[in-house]
């Protein structure tokens, strides 16, 4: 089973790196949204430190939505997805690989650039550490749940706003727990509880969403 797994992953990564401009879009959007906040709410360091974690998390949500929309669309349009449905490789594995490559190409760059943003928004070292851990645990969850929503809207012509309506409500619990963990870190408190809840959500999503996404893809292909 290891060979289709590797072939799929290398295909996805090769495709992603051939479309460099689309690879950069979420990253640029992310930096732009965050740099608007100091201009919008005023550059006071205290204020920025207070709203910083929330701002970064909301920006992550929005920019991952931006990249996610293309997760299945091209493969759906050129018939690749249909071939995969017919092939002996389980569709849920295909989904899992696609989600993994999406996370590696669209979300990981956001995490790599995040120290710069922590500097922009005047986060303390403790806050940054908590932010990074919540992002590491939370963004795979975003990609997994997001894939289900994208799969449901793949066959539709106008998916954009509908996708945000479907997905953003589901992301709210994650947002609440992640920002409360960073707030606890700002007060030098322990935030293991919040991390445990995010981790539990991640495991739940890892177990269930590949199958839900595969089913949704079969539905959109009729």
């Amino acid at each position, binding site marked *: 089973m290891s060979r289709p797994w590797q072939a799929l992953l290398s295909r996805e990564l090769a495709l992603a790196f051939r479309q460099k401009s689309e690879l950069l879009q979420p990253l640029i959007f992310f930096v732009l949204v965050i740099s608007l906040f100091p201009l919008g709410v005023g550059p006071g360091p205290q204020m920025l430190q207070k709203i910083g974690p929330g701002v970064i998390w909301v920006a992550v949500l929005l920019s991952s939505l931006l990249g996610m929309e293309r997760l299945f669309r091209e493969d759906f349009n050129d018939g690749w997805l249909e071939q995969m449905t017919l092939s002996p490789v389980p569709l849920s594995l295909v989904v899992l690989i696609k989600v993994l490559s999406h996370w590696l190409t669209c979300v990981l760059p956001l995490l790599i650039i995040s120290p710069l943003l922590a500097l922009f928004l005047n986060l303390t070292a403790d806050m940054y550490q908590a932010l990074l851990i919540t992002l590491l645990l939370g963004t795979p969850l975003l990609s997994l749940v997001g894939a289900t929503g994208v799969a449901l809207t793949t066959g539709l012509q106008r998916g954009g706003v509908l996708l945000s309506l479907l997905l953003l409500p589901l992301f709210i619990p994650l947002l609440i727990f992640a920002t409360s963990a960073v707030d606890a870190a700002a007060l030098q408190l322990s935030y293991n509880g919040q991390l445990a809840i995010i981790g539990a959500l991640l495991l739940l999503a890892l177990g269930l969403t590949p199958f839900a996404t595969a089913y*949704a893809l079969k539905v959109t292909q009729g």
Partner: protein
Amino acid sequence: MWKWLHPYAKSEQAFRLCGRLLPWLSISAVLILGAGTVWGLAFAPSDYQQGDSFRIIYIHVPSAILSMGVYSAMAIAAFIGLVWQIRTATMAVAAIAPVGAVLTFIALFTGAAWGKPMWGTWWVWDARLTSELILLFLYLGVMALYQSFDDKQQGGKAAGVMALVGVVNLPIIHYSVEWWNTLHQGATITKFGKPSIAPEMLWPLLLCILGLALASAAISLYRFQSELMRREMHRPWVKALAEQEHTHAV
């Protein structure tokens, strides 16, 4: 049980069953809901602390409870539709969603109107209020997803998947008042043992909940019938029914 239920998976049988149930449900809903509301709004004693403004509980609490109850019903229908591939169940999802959305809106609106005199604010980002708002967005998402498919068969399945994914939110709403100690008060009637509400206030509330449940069921069934008709327009049984109606009218 299964043998007894299975014929109702056929659309024509389901339509007839709804037709038989509807008059009973709607008449009892009007009677019970009417009695509960009049008793609650006019005759129940006023609260020692909140005065007469507590009476909004007779609209707020039933609609809040049912906004979640209706979501569970919708999710169960979605589950049945997806697992056993029963078409009528996915039609039920589409029929139920707007009913739940309206109930959620009523719960949010009456909550805001109650919050203004009691807490001095229309809206706070309290755990229960926020999760109820998410519930409204979930209903709207299910409705929008169903509407945006031209092929309603496909749309019904997609909406069903969405409804099941959203079930995650139900425990969050229910336990929100216990997990987060915020402005919204804790449960008063659903806790075990003795409820912390006077019986002369409790009885009309229970009547209101039962009445609104019956009313939601009746409206859902009516919408379900319309959905069946719309989706099965080309089927002979709908044509026969329409002709029968026509000859009655003439």
